[in-house]
């Protein structure tokens, strides 16, 4: 398991780019995601069914792509509990064999609320956007606010 280093709020600058994250999507990963998520819609699993539905073949779940964007942000944050908001539009299909790259940059930083807004995009190996209008928001509270109330 990879250890992470928590991002320091004071050192974040507006416009700063996050380290990009690239994932190679396979049929096996789509199957694994279907099992883990429960979403066994045949457009993700059954080649003949997907073609009959007018698709080029099985496609990855949009939420798998969003999970990659989530990981890019939380890897950078170094703490999953800091992510408060995540959204995006599924702009294109992801097929097995695609290499998708998540990238993002800090759109704004609020010193008062200690919140940072990040704009995100995910593109495929041809540079086509598969997730656009992506936004994440993180909160750098001075202490972790998520501890279970006793």
């Amino acid at each position, binding site marked *: *398991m*990879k*250890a*992470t280093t*928590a991002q320091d709020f004071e050192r974040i600058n507006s416009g700063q780019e996050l380290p990009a994250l690239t*994932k190679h999507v396979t049929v096996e*990963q789509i199957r*694994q*995601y279907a*099992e*883990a*998520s*429960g*979403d066994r*819609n045949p*457009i993700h699993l059954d080649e003949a*069914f997907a073609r*009959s*539905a*007018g698709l080029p073949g099985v496609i990855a*779940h*949009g*939420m*798998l792509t*969003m*999970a*990659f964007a*989530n*990981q890019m942000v*939380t*890897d950078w944050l*170094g*703490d*999953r*509990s800091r*992510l*408060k*908001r*995540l*959204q*995006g*539009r*599924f702009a294109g299909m992801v097929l097995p064999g695609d290499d998708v790259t998540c990238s993002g940059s800090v759109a704004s930083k609020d010193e008062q609320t200690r919140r940072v807004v990040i704009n995100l995009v995910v593109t495929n190996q041809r540079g086509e956007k598969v997730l656009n*209008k992506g936004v994440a928001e993180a909160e750098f509270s001075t202490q972790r*606010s*998520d501890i279970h109330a006793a």
Partner: protein
Amino acid sequence: MTDPRWVGRSYETKPFLVTEQSIRDYMGAVGDLSEDGELLAPPTYAMVYGFDAYWQLWTDQEVALDVAHLVHGEQRFSFQRPVRPGDRLQTTGRLTAINTRGDMELVTFELSARDEKDRPVSDATALFIIRRA
């Protein structure tokens, strides 16, 4: 075309017990393996504990969405607190809009998850696009 009279219909999951195995299966499937001490679920794990609400919508025989032509158009989440093993979470999903745009139908589904003490855990809005056959 889905009958707009179903707008307002809601679905509730059974309480979902979050296990370490379920979180690790999800982390393995998406390839997000980082841990910083305590095991916290990746935030998008909300799709796992809330999945049954989506499933109930997609399989509702009365609403009868054309799921063979349904794709996920947009997704928004807000997270009130992280999720960890031992959480028992219940998600309510509500069909809040059915709109048409050209030859597409847009279905909006809004979800809210709460813990066993009825405290908010996460909210989500999903937009599904149904391409007319």
